[in-house]
């Protein structure tokens, strides 16, 4: 069974991908954030370029910070962005 999730991008991730959000249909094999990132990198070289160094990326599922190992569960929104620099 496939699964649909919205992805939002910020800062240079958004700029380099040239989009601020998109909806992705995941194959059933995609269970975690890391799986989804790997899936995207497999389908298009732009993700390979922008997501080349995973240490420079942070993730939030439904607006909570998570790691690559986090299960997507029935989350509706994944955010991918660089480390925050506010304050």
């Amino acid at each position, binding site marked *: 069974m496939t699964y649909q999730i919205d992805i939002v991008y910020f800062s240079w991730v958004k700029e380099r991908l040239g989009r601020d959000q998109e909806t992705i249909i995941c194959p059933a094999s995609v269970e975690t954030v890391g799986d989804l990132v790997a899936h995207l990198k497999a389908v298009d070289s732009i993700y390979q370029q922008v997501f080349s160094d995973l240490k420079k990326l942070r993730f939030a599922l439904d607006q909570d910070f998570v790691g690559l190992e986090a299960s997507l569960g029935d989350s509706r929104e994944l955010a991918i962005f660089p*480390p925050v*620099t506010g*304050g």
Partner: protein
Amino acid sequence: MIKILVLDDDFDAGAEIANLSALGGGAVASFVGQVRGDGQLDALELEHYPAMTEKALREIAEKADKQWPLHGVTIIHRVGRLKVGEQIVLACTCSDHRQAAIEACSFIMDQLKTVAPFWKKEIKQDGSESWVEERQSDIDAAKSWKD
């Protein structure tokens, strides 16, 4: 009493301090961060994750409120384009005890630097732009507070 604001416009730090002072705790600490005019900087562009921002700021305020005996916490963070000298952020805390107020204010600022979804882009006077990178000193400062 927790007050969270995410604003395009400027804020009045004195009025916010007065609001917390009116709670009668006796000790009001505050911190204001501005755009510092380093070298060729013209402005900062502050981007954020609107769906997450207020929630993240509220969680920071609630953590502070749990860890110290506070009467009130105010966090204001601006977004959009901010020129050199403009105010970016305010953290203000009110307590019966000065150390509690000051420590909580310091804690909030350290958290803001590491777990609030804001990103700063520097815009130089020559028009060139670059995203600010995270600083190890901010990561270390945030880690120095026990959970």
